[in-house]
């Protein structure tokens, strides 16, 4: 019962989110060498498709948790871009007051409950959020963003089993970008393994999609989220996608030789944003003019976010003791 991406507001939201993630992160990459963003930073450039498709499908009462590579998820969930950039700059106005940095994002006001830096760390936490929603009979669902590497941690199986057992309203969004740092999947999974098939065997309904085909992502996500909202238990979706830049940091690292130029080029052709624009041009009333107008707005927001971060103060050293306990 796939539902088409025929809602104009949703089409627009997806487009804006794609632009915002891409342009904000390109600006991070550009400015990172200035040495003012002094924390490990994992960019999602190339992987904007899945979070952007998800953006119009979640409400602020839905909850989400994420990983070290969380910028896109935070932004798609509606997290404040200014507070995110300020956080990466270590400023007092950052979403974690500078305590967390790029890997520790939070925006409680939109249900983004936190991203953390240890692989697998937020998987059970997301399941716990779903448990609370079930027990309190809340209307929301919980989204757990994971990478392919996180599925190798024992805690994933333990959490997935519990989610299946209790039929919890949780959506596992797995962005399979083929690598964990520089380690390809073939170093980490037996030949022929399909991640989503393995998860299915745990008792979670699982599917697979092209994560760089935004329309396909939207339609699958819409269908599965509706099922979760209707009370049918957890869902797992594995999306194929690809990170363009280095695992951590602003540069390209294809020169290191852990992946081939050909592989990279093949994925660049499947670029999520241009593909989506083409789809809009062919199937909707959107025109190139709309694109440049929307992109212009996003550029403004990006510039504003960096100005905000740059001009914000560092947290006062005397506050370092705050928040150890409540």
């Amino acid at each position, binding site marked *: 019962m796939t539902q088409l991406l025929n809602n104009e507001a949703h089409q627009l939201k997806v487009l804006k989110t794609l632009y915002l993630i891409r342009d904000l992160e390109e600006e991070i990459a550009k400015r990172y060498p200035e040495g003012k963003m002094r924390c490990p930073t994992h960019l999602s450039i190339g992987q904007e498709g899945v979070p952007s498709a998800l953006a119009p499908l979640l409400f602020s009462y839905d909850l989400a948790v994420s990983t070290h590579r969380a910028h896109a998820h935070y932004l798609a969930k509606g997290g404040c871009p200014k507070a995110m950039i300020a956080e990466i700059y270590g400023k007092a106005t950052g979403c974690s007051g*500078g305590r967390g940095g790029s890997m520790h994002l939070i925006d409680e006001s939109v249900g983004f409950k936190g991203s953390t*830096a240890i*692989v*697998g760390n937020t998987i059970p936490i997301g399941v716990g959020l779903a448990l609370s929603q079930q027990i309190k009979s809340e209307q929301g669902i919980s989204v757990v963003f994971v990478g392919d590497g996180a599925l190798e941690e024992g805690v994933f199986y333990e959490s997935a089993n519990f989610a299946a057992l209790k039929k919890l309203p949780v959506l596992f969004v797995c962005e399979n970008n083929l690598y964990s740092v520089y*380690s390809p999947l073939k170093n*980490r999974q037996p030949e022929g393994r399909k991640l989503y098939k393995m998860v299915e065997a745990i008792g979670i309904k699982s599917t697979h999609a092209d994560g760089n085909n935004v329309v396909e992502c939207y339609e699958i996500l819409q269908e599965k989220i509706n099922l979760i909202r209707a009370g049918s238990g957890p869902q797992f979706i594995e999306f194929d996608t690809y990170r363009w830049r280095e695992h951590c940091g602003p540069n390209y690292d294809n020169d290191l030789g852990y992946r081939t130029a050909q592989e990279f080029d093949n994925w660049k052709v499947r670029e999520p944003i241009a593909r989506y624009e083409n789809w809009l041009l062919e199937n909707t009333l959107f025109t190139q003019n709309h694109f440049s107008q929307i992109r212009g707005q996003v550029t403004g927001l990006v510039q504003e976010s960096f100005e905000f971060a740059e001009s914000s103060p*560092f*947290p006062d050293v005397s506050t370092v003791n705050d928040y150890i306990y409540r």
Partner: protein
Amino acid sequence: MSCKELTMAQAVNVALTESMEMDESVICYGLGVDDPLRIFGTTANLSENFPQRVFDMPTCENAMTGVGIGAALNGLKPVMVHQRLDFFLLAMDQLVNAAAKWHYMFNGQSNVPIVIRLMIGRGWGQGPTHSQNLHAWFAHIPGLKVVMPTNPNDAYHMLKQAIQDPNPVIFIEHRWLHGQVGLIEKGSHSSIGKAKLLKKGDDITIIAMSYLTVEAIRASEALSKNSVNVELIDLMTVKPIDWETIYESVEKTGRLLVLDTGAETGSVAGEIVAKVSEKCFAHLKAAPSRLAMPDIPEPTSYGLTKQFYFGAKEIAEKVHGMLLENVDSSLYRELDTEGHHDIPGSHFKGPF
């Protein structure tokens, strides 16, 4: 014997290479051991030279620790490596409930010769979960040995010994030390369980560990200009501690300052202060003291970490205060490091 100048990362690499050449039971694995960056260079060439015995692993720290324990029980000598200590926290069950106790709880019938290499650090936005100095946790567990070398030579010798040690050894490398250059002396005697007297002095004993030894050396030099003669000991092994060397020094100087890269409460420094108070009380001229990290998670922000760490200057001022009371704030200005506080200073040849 032969002398060669290497960085600490290279020294670790040589120790691993020689161990694997010499002993076919040594295996080496961990996330990224064969990737292009080779764990900061420490595992360079290993997968080429020993393709069967060196391998990358899935992201599953707890299971792979257990796998290493199993392999060790049947005659292998695994060396597992983690790019941050924090990642290894997932493996506490296998380490604490199995590796550390196997020899004891089965009445000495079998043992677990495994080495776990862990990187600790500070600064540059590593933040709350990528910089933790939790050596005291491991020191608290009976059955584990915990090693924290400061220079390439000690790292080389102690890693080779750790690999041949019949017990589980936690081998802790500070990221600010990987670039440290030094001579490898093949005949030298740095060994697990032995602290090293780096500088003789009569006024106060300073016990340092890992990166703080570098800061303590600078502090001692500045203090000597103010006629304070420090006796400096590099602890090197935080479990088991070389009490003899410590007692002997404190009985001579009558004063003690212990430096610890970890948080103060429950620290190794606290343990040393306690033991010295018990055993050397009659010799003490002043209350033994310690400098450790505050009991605060390490924040990421450049702004918040400005006064978070301590270094040579704070050490010198502390010692000066313990001996001569009033410290003029300009006295140790030479120890101020130029540039950013969150990277090693100009005196220091180290990457992040």
